[in-house]
């Protein structure tokens, strides 16, 4: 009889049931929340769904997923730790991005820079709450609203925060239509929101081809640390604009992007085990994340207002919000707000300028942060 009990006991020990903790259950709830956002609310479902399911699977006790050499560990190790996935995603983003609105209105680059204000303010704020300098830098970059850059920087400086940082970045990116309008309305007058902008000039193909080369030289020489990310971005854009490698650019834009998105989602979700995630720092990261987004939006709007003080061609300050590089969501928000104030206002293309400038701005900020610690 004893032998039978021992046998049953040993069988029971191999199941997850006896190893299930309250932490696991809480993480299941967290994963279900993100799955709900992805499935029901359709907030960034391409990322929140694999991340949410990754959290769920990795918190099944005894499941051989995240130990060294196991499936999710392999995805995470070779994809994230080796910094492959964020860079490959940037290749795809480069192929998808049209820089014409930014080239037509180069001032939008300054808006993209101004919208990085939150990154630096949040850096300071997190230090007050006991984050280390490297952790503070990784949390600050969330406001740039750029997932791959957040993951790249966090992996370089504070790899233990990848889960909460990436999740906060992607969650708030999907909530840009809820976060940005009140801030923009608060910082602008009705008359400012009604400003109609001149139609953008045509940008020649040669200009579009030259841009990625120019950007690579300039940024590569000043902040070489960000070139794995930005170099892939400019390569993708060069492939797009030259138009001579349609097969490659199509692959980078669709199949490759979809494949790495799956691995990215799972890998990020897999890092969020109960012992890693359930601590006050994770909650603080979510709190600072939204603060970061608010300050970055304000930074963009205020930069446009400053530029308007010294230039003749007035820009609508609403497009400052698009400096937060949640492409193209924040540009759409700007467009919708512009139409709300003045139905004749078509700000979408004007807002795309700061929007893509924001991608470069966030990458530049991340590069400067990495350079600060190396």
């Amino acid at each position, binding site marked *: 009889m004893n032998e039978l009990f021992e046998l049953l006991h040993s069988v029971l020990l191999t199941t997850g049931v006896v190893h299930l903790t309250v932490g696991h259950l809480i993480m299941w709830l967290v994963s279900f929340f993100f799955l709900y956002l992805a499935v029901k609310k359709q907030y960034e479902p391409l990322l929140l769904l694999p991340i949410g399911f990754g959290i769920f699977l990795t918190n099944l006790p005894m499941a051989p997923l995240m130990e060294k050499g196991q499936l999710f560990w392999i995805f995470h190790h070779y994809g994230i730790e080796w910094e492959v996935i964020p860079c490959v995603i940037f290749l795809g983003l480069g192929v998808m991005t049209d820089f014409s609105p930014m080239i037509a209105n*180069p001032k939008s680059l300054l808006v993209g820079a101004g919208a990085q204000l939150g990154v630096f303010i949040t850096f*300071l704020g997190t230090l007050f709450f006991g984050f280390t300098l490297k952790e503070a830098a990784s949390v600050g970059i969330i406001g740039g609203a750029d997932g791959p850059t957040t993951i790249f920087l966090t992996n370089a400086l504070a790899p233990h925060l990848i889960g909460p940082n990436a999740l906060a970045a992607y969650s708030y990116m999907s909530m840009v239509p809820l976060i940005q309008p009140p801030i923009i309305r608060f910082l602008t007058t009705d008359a400012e929101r009604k400003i109609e902008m001149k139609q953008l000039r045509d940008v020649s193909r*040669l*200009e579009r081809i030259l841009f990625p080369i120019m950007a690579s030289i*300039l940024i590569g020489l000043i902040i070489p640390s960000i070139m794995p990310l930005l170099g892939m971005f400019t390569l993708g854009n060069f492939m797009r604009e030259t138009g001579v490698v349609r097969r490659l650019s199509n692959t980078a834009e669709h199949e490759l992007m979809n494949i790495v998105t799956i691995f990215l989602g799972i890998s990020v979700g897999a890092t969020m085990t109960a012992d890693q995630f359930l601590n006050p720092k994770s909650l603080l990261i979510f709190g600072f994340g939204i603060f970061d987004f608010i300050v970055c939006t304000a930074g963009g709007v205020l930069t446009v207002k400053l530029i308007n003080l010294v230039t003749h061609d007035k820009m609508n300050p609403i497009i400052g919000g698009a400096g937060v590089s949640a492409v193209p969501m924040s540009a759409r928000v700007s467009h919708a707000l512009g139409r709300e104030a003045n139905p004749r206002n078509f700000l979408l293309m004007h807002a795309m300028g700061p929007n893509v400038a924001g991608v470069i701005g966030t990458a*530049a900020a991340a590069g400067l942060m990495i350079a600060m610690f190396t």
Partner: protein
Amino acid sequence: MEAINWTQVVLALGVRFIGVFVILAFLMISIQFSGALLERMRKRAGLDETAVSNGGASQRNRVAKQPLPSSEQAGDSLLSEETVAAIALALSQLDEEHFSIRPSMALPGEKPPAEARDSSWRILGRQGTHQRAASWSEFGNRRQGKPTGNAKS
């Protein structure tokens, strides 16, 4: 926990924030410079083409020496956007009424549905196609010196 030198941190962050501005400002200046350069090259190439089409080196020199028209003057000589849109609309309507071949909305061997048989666009489309076919055959006949269908009747 590491001790934080707040003055140093604030300064470092301030410098980096300005650094982002400086880098993107450099990029902005590069874009503006290259854009202006390419625009100038494009204009020059356009002027050269005009000169060649007018013929002769002296003509080319004369054209090159002429001051460029201001944007307002150039705008006056061009058609307005509304005019262009009106012409485009008229052309597309003309195309729809006379030159396009309408789908019959039925597979070969199938009877076309009622809305396709009786609707005005089908009649128009068919007429257009027939008219075009007739006019092309007449055009061919005329070139070959043959009597046209109209002449026969």
